[in-house]
């Protein structure tokens, strides 16, 4: 141990211990996860269009998927933006009841979205093992459904935390970040719906 000697000190004890928005490190990790999953979505969509160049008729041998469930699912995802934005806005205030209502609404809409997704998958125009087109469509929807389910579970977990006394400090920031990830799920939902329902009709 070197002898005690005087050193100028940069005192940071006054700094806060919780930050919201871009300054939070978990927000950065969430952004990086979105970049990873965004790349996976982009690559599956790229494979979809690559295989499209390889076959003469697209969708090969089947009719384009019916629009009904596609539009419903897209609409529900757009609606889900409201509770997500609400939860994000009230998170910094630390008001537990508002946060609980926000998360409850978000979880409810997520359940509806999953049910609609179930119907959507059942009414697709093909089964995953028919041909390359069907496989990529199911891969795209399956990838998104995976994200939908994990995001739903995350929302439920944070909802449970909000009922305990631990819902403060960095946990409040987690609520806001959870809503960021929900925006990502909505964006990829709209994108997947457009690729699956749109390209076979308009492009």
């Amino acid at each position, binding site marked *: *141990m*070197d002898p*005690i*000697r*005087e*050193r*100028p*000190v*940069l*005192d*940071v*004890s*006054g*700094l*806060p*211990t*919780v*930050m919201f928005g871009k*300054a939070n*490190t978990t927000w*950065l*990790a969430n952004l*990086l*996860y979105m*970049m*990873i*999953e965004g*790349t*996976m979505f982009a*690559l*599956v969509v790229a*494979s979809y269009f*690559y*295989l499209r160049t*390889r*076959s003469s008729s697209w969708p*090969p041998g089947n009719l384009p998927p019916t629009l009904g469930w596609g539009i419903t699912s897209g609409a529900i995802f757009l609606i889900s933006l409201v509770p997500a934005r609400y939860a994000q806005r009230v998170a910094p205030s*630390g008001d537990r009841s508002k946060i609980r209502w926000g998360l409850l609404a978000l979880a409810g809409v997520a359940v509806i979205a999953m049910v609609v997704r179930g119907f959507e998958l059942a009414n697709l125009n093909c089964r*995953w*093992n*028919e*041909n*390359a*087109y*069907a*496989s*990529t469509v*199911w*891969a795209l929807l399956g990838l998104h459904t995976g994200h939908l389910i994990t995001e739903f*579970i995350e929302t439920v*977990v944070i909802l449970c*935390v909000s009922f305990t006394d*631990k819902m*403060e*400090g*960095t*946990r409040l920031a987690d609520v806001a970040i959870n809503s960021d990830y929900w925006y990502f799920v909505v964006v990829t939902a709209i994108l997947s719906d457009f690729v699956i329902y749109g390209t076979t009709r308009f492009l």
Partner: protein
Amino acid sequence: MAISEPVVVSQSGAADRLARTWAQPRGFWGWFQNVHHTAIGVRFMVTSFIFFLLGGVLAAMMRWQLVRPEHNAIGPDLYNQLFTVHGSTMIFLFAVPMMFQGFGVYVVPHMCGTRNIAFPRLNAFSYYIYVVGALLLWVGLFLKTGADAGWFAYVPLSGPEFTPGKRSDFWAQMITFTEVSALGVAICITTTILRYRAPGMTLNRMPILLWEKLVTSIMVIFAMPSVMVVSSMLLMDRTINTQFFNPSVGGDVLLYQHLFWFFGHPEVYIIFLPATAIVSTVVAVFARRHIFGYVPIVTSVVATGFLGFSVWVHHMFATGLPQMSASFFTAASLMIVIPTAVQFYCWMATIWHGRLQLKLPMLWIFGFFFVFLIGGLSGVMLASVPLDWQVHDTFFVVAHFHYVLIGGALFPMFGGMYFWIPKITGRMMNDRLGKIHFWLFFVGFNLTFFTMHFLGLHGMPRRVYTYTPEMRWGALNLLATIGVVFMTAGILVFIANFFQSKATGRFAGPNPWGAGSLEWATPSPPPHYNFLELPTVNGREALWEAEPNQPIVGGVREDIPEVLVTNTLDSEPEYRDELPGPSIWPFLTAIAVSIAFIWSIFSPWGIAYGAIPVVITLIGWLWPRGHSPSPRVPEPALEARWIR
């Protein structure tokens, strides 16, 4: 937050308070709860080195089978497993885990001047996932289920019809494991570099090693998903009848190649950039001067990061692609030589205007200069399409990528090991044994792989388990096999040197080489809290340009594991963040995820049922515990300025 005037700083209680706060549990179960980056970094290095030795044994067996024509030592089935598991082990289980995860996880937090890596539990989870993935491939090899379709397993050979059984499934799932691990560590390293740097270490004062780890992490984040998508597609084709690669129903075999090589080429830069990071660090230390051309080197590293994603089709020139796209990729493949050339010239200028001390790490870096240069230049030959039509998939290519990978990653790795082992173990490595190791390895390497250039030019294709005597390849193959003996001897000398120096080596002290980066400010081996006083930085080489009474950071709580978070551009202190402590849950989550992945090989429902324990263990991992740091509601963020 102005600098307070010089104030008496009481040192006495801090060390043991920090030691208690940052202590990691000991004992058998404690081993699995350890989340400190030094422990995880050393584990990555040791485990990947063990798999390097195992991969080397496979290479020796392959060379023994090729020693003479029509040699019946190893049959085709076993030989195909040998070269596939050798390739997969060296790339996925050794090169990336050692160069990116091993050195990254250990060195980056030290160099940033912080106490632990960001998201330490995710870091520990990544290590366990990597180990399970490695064991999966090797247990498969012992059970005759070793992958046998090559390390990039082109479809349709690795597809459902031409590889019966579970061989390609084990390989594809191993890929998913190692990529989840690499992505996890990439997130930890990116956050640590961007947000946990010591105050004063602005972007243009960051050591080059941090720049390269940052660029490598971003490359990992954009490249690894591509191989996860393609290995999952292959797995789904083999288990649930999807038709991605079935040419008869619209599938396409080239889709596999495009998706794999879109990951494949950034992958080799993910291995190479950490190597140039070590070279830049070591050259500056042993030329006793700042690196020449800091800005050109950092620019060329970032350029390599981008260009790495634009050259992948040079692996597919022989598939008969239209001439137009082939010439674009030739141009891109030639362009990517420029950034590396810039770095070579800057290193040469650093040595030219420095004062060279040819100590052991520097000897290996000179080995890198001579060997990698041959690999890089034969790469220029491969970039031109007509030449690639002749030498693609021959032993010329085998020689090229061994010169680029062994020359480009292994030589800097040994240089980095001789450079940092005194910091890790606290003892200096023996100089004489190090030189013997270098010359044995250098001679053996060139003997084995330089002859392969001629084998390739004489038309010997890649991955052949034997050849007929009339082809007149016997003599060169014999020469190549002799080289393996020297290399093996060299590696054994290194292992002996490591264990001998660990026990009886000279004590290294905090800074045996007089280096300039922050990790040499900690005692060696460093305690679990790394820095007794969190440092501040006012130059590119922190220790060389530190003022006599360089300010330290005070006010970070010592009773909870807290680190200072600074903003990205000019590393102004922003807030204090409490890091999660040691916990068994990352290990349990890794086991649950492994069970789900391996179960999904045998039944498609494996993912669905396997996901339930994964969710449970994840909740156990992320559930908030312990006291919450600030009972009161947080007031808006204070505006903290670092006034100089």
